[in-house]
């Protein structure tokens, strides 16, 4: 795994607060409307390289939409997404990867799923074979390499999806509830993979509904409510002592049905 990301500048786990480099990815006034309804409302976020950010919030808060917009799968109605200070272009999108809540498995073998992703990214020949073997090993799927991907269990499919995304050597990895509906064993395997990826320098933005998971993995946290950023901050602090009412209610397991909070928080995390 270390090799996969070795082409990228290794980043220390802690980045000083006065770091002058532009954030790895940034959203400015990001809005998304569908049929007159504002689903993302003026989202300003700056995320630095090398960090693992958890995105929290209730269903319909706009978490998936935000990730999709940042990944370029969704055109924002207003605002923009900046990658290292520049607009999101093809090259920038190629430096990103995303794993969806329900893993998309091609109707091919496990190995062919990896091969397809690598081929699309222009990795061929020996290098591709090497990365395939590495990804299979990483996902502990070497024994199942020639099995049809769609007969794997849910946990195995998600491990494959994650390994496939990482095999492409992304700088930034989006994870949309990667462990939803997985059992504890499978969840742990996925979390191990995520930790390995992060320790090798991959920046990760991950949606989770699981406060325990957010605590285990998260360094930074963003709490969305009603399409707005309700609160941002270090994950440990936000999870222990959330300030936004919606985040407090979420933490305490209360239902929070009041209209969205006073306004968006513009904050660098």
């Amino acid at each position, binding site marked *: 795994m270390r090799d996969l990301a070795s082409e990228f500048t290794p980043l220390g786990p802690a980045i000083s607060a006065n770091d002058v480099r532009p954030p790895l990815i940034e959203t400015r006034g990001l809005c998304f409307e569908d049929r007159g309804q504002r689903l993302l409302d003026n989202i300003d976020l700056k995320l630095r390289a090398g960090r693992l950010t958890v995105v929290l919030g209730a269903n319909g808060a706009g978490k998936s939409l935000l990730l999709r917009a940042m990944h370029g799968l969704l055109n924002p109605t207003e605002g923009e997404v900046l990658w290292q200070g520049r607009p999101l272009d093809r090259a920038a999108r190629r430096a*990103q990867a995303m794993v*969806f809540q329900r893993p998309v498995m091609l109707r091919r073998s496990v190995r062919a799923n990896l091969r397809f992703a690598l081929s699309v990214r222009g990795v061929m020949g020996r290098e591709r074979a090497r990365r395939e073997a590495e990804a299979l090993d990483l996902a502990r799927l070497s024994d199942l390499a020639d099995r*049809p991907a769609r007969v794997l269990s849910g946990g195995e499919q998600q491990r494959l999806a994650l390994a496939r995304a990482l095999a492409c050597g992304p700088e930034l990895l989006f994870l949309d509830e990667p462990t939803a509906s997985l059992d504890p064993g499978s969840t742990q395997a996925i979390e191990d993979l995520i930790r390995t990826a992060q320790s090798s320098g991959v920046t990760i933005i991950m949606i989770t509904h699981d406060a325990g998971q957010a605590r285990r993995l998260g360094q930074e946290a963003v709490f969305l409510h009603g399409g707005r950023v309700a609160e941002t901050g270090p994950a440990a602090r936000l999870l222990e002592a959330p300030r936004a009412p919606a985040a407090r209610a979420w933490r305490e397991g209360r239902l929070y049905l009041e209209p969205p909070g006073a306004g968006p928080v513009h904050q660098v995390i």
Partner: protein
Amino acid sequence: MESFWGILSEAFTLVLSWDPDLVEIVGLSLRVTLTAVGIACLIGLPLGAVVGAFRFPGRGAVALMLNALMGLPPVVVGLMVYLMLSASGPLGVLGLLYTPTAMIIAQTILVTPIIAALTKQVVEDLYAEYADQFASLGVGLADRVGALLWDARYSLLTVALAGFGRAVAEVGAVMIVGGNINHVTRVMTTTIALETSKGNLQLALALGVVLLTLAVLVNGAVMALRASAVRSAYA
């Protein structure tokens, strides 16, 4: 007139004795139809995949045309190809009228919209599942079509089979452009039509038996393939 069972037993004798006339007719039928279906697949599969997996201006009109053309009456196709290939037609100089090539052209025109329209449906459904992943990976146009066709390969086998069924059983178009000339353009369906009207029911029925057997064999093969595909979750 002989009894039905008498005719049937004579027909089977013809089939089992590998009658040379029968073999020639069946051979030409298969050559014409398989070539036409092959060409129709070469055109229809990518065309259907592009219409199924891309949004472009006029896409709805193309889809509508493909669906409408699925129901083309064979005699109309035969007539159009006849007009094109006849001595006074624009392609008359090629001298293709009343040749197996003319029959292949007619059947290709008949089958291509079927292959394309059914492929579009199959690919559209598959792409609905793959779209996000493909967008995330940044899959290019050619790769997208290729991957969708490959991953839908077992469903597309059924599509090709539908085209084959339509072409091999069709009589109007090949009759008009082929002319049903003995030893040249006589295929199973045209022979059945001719021999029935001549009262030579043994040969007609023997060909009918062959057509039916072919249909059962081809369908059986495709069903078996699909079943194995379903077991490995490829379908």
